[in-house]
């Protein structure tokens, strides 16, 4: 058997309940249980996480940076999606 370093998994940590999950880094693991344990040992030795996600790296779909222009372009000319596009008569509050 050739040497194996196991599959690559991406690790996401949640700092406290209710907080969004953030990418922390990656680990190598042979299966999902070991991926979770390795993720805990590598990225949360000091209670940095209250919950962990592990996802096989080859399962992640990402937009590519070269598409930055064209892919996100549709949002560029839609200023009316922001509240400061709209004007209100003077003196109006809490709107």
């Amino acid at each position: 058997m050739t040497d194996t370093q196991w599959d690559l998994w991406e690790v996401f940590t949640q700092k406290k309940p209710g907080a969004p999950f953030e990418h922390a880094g990656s680990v190598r693991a042979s299966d999902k249980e070991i991926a979770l344990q390795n993720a805990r040992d590598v990225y949360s030795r000091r209670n940095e996480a209250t919950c962990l996600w592990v996802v096989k790296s080859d399962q992640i779909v990402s937009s590519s940076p070269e598409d930055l222009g064209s892919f996100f372009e549709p949002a560029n000319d839609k200023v009316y999606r922001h509240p400061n596009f709209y004007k209100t008569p003077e003196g109006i509050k809490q709107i």
Partner: protein
Amino acid sequence: MSNVTDIKKLEDAFEAKIAAGITIEPKDWMPEKYRKQLIRMMSQHAHSEVVGMLPEGNWITRAPSLSRKVCLLAKVQDEAGHGLYIYSATETLGADRVELLNQFLNGSAKYSSIFNYPTLNWADMGAIGWLVDGAAIVNQTALAKCSYGPYARAMLRICKEENFHHKQGYQILANMMNGSDAQKKMAQDAVNRFWWPSLMMFGPSDTNSPNSADLMRWKVKLYSNDDLRQRFIDRTVPQAEAIGIKLPDEKLNYNTQKRSYDWGEINWDEFNAVISGNGPCNQQRMKQRKDAHQNGQWVREAAQAYASKKSKLQAA
């Protein structure tokens, strides 16, 4: 448009990003040389974290108290974690983990020369935490601002953890300097042996550092080796004085004009000997590392076999 002008355009865009202080992320275009230099630097850094476990691991079973033992154990475990952060950050550049490990095991990749010095007594744990981790913090704090995102983020995490290592080491020496004459002598002896090798950790002098110019232009390195070395000296001398440790450099003297310490000369022959494989422990470290890799092989295989068997059962 020809291929050459394509590449020129990409290069210009890359240099403009670096100049504007925008971090480079894994899927961004980058010059091959940037990628190669980073893989070289980051893998050496990861290997250093892993080898760094050996000199201290040597003292875990002989720590003078249970409390010292758990502290040292946690520190060594951190070093393993640091190795893993940096290996995974290196993989984002398209480097293959197995190949990186092979370069390490067959000796074609370097690691920090400091770990080729022996740890002779408990005071060495103090000297390593205080000086070696102290030097590493100075280096890594600079790297935390480097242009490659995954490396910078790994460094941020590592710096936070190194602070405990640094204080843990200093406390060991401070306690010994408060103890018996024999303990004071031991602490002083450890610092005598580790001071100069710690200064060597910053690498060759700027005038003799082949990769520095590119790395600085690309903001992988933000400060020169000599600047970081000086920064380390300036913050460490007062710490030595505070606990009555004498740093082994007759020329060490505060220069009021430049508000910084003047100091002696590194023995570059020793530095070159150690990085080319002739330090006191190079062979021993490599042997330990190879043995650990071989002895772990059955674990890697067994876990893999278990995982394949389980997924077959689930598919059936």
